């Protein structure tokens, strides 16, 4: 069983990165791995409550985020500095997350077998 971490750094909706980063978690959920995800830099906005993409004509993230846990991705980490720099607080996120400082994020990255960046 491999420890696999998805590191999300790109803003939602402007590019496909954030969406792909979410989809791939669901795919990996079919296999026996230890999954986790980090949201840092502009990707912290992917977790924000109240996103309404209907006028853009694209599927949003809010239906998918709560099922990550059911697909085996039980640990969702948010980089504290990225969050604070963008004026966000832990209450602004649509799902429960663990807020972690730079050193903590660096440490858990080192513990992974594989890192997939988005």
């Amino acid at each position: 069983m491999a420890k696999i971490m998805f590191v999300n750094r790109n803003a939602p909706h402007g590019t496909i990165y954030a969406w792909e980063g979410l989809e791939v978690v669901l795919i990996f959920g079919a296999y026996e791995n230890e999954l986790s995800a980090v949201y840092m830099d502009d990707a912290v906005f992917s977790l924000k409550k109240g996103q309404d993409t209907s006028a853009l004509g694209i599927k949003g993230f809010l239906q998918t985020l709560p099922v990550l846990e059911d697909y085996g991705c039980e640990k969702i980490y948010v980089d504290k500095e990225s969050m604070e720099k963008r004026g966000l607080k832990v209450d602004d996120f649509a799902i429960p997350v663990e807020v972690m400082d730079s050193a903590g994020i660096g440490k858990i990255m080192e513990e992974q077998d594989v890192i997939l960046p988005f």
Partner: protein
Amino acid sequence: MLHIVNKSPYMKSSLESCIRVAQKNAPILLIEDAVLGAAVGGSVEGLVQGALKDHPVYALGADISARGLAGSLTPGVKVIDYADFVDLVEQHKPMTWL
């Protein structure tokens, strides 16, 4: 862990975030537009000098040469070729800062 950065530090925060998170002594490799950060005298020079205190910093020679930067690199940045790149990836798990 090998941290690979390919975006210009003047356009994106990838290098800055990488340096903030990278554990002490973890190597950092600049490729593609990220090599612009290794040019001497730029406003990100301090960022790179700070990284050099805690990390080996490499830059891919092909990208350095293509941008005419071979003679003007921040001291301490090591220029490597593609074979060295492969060696680094063999020796360390990679994390790419897209």
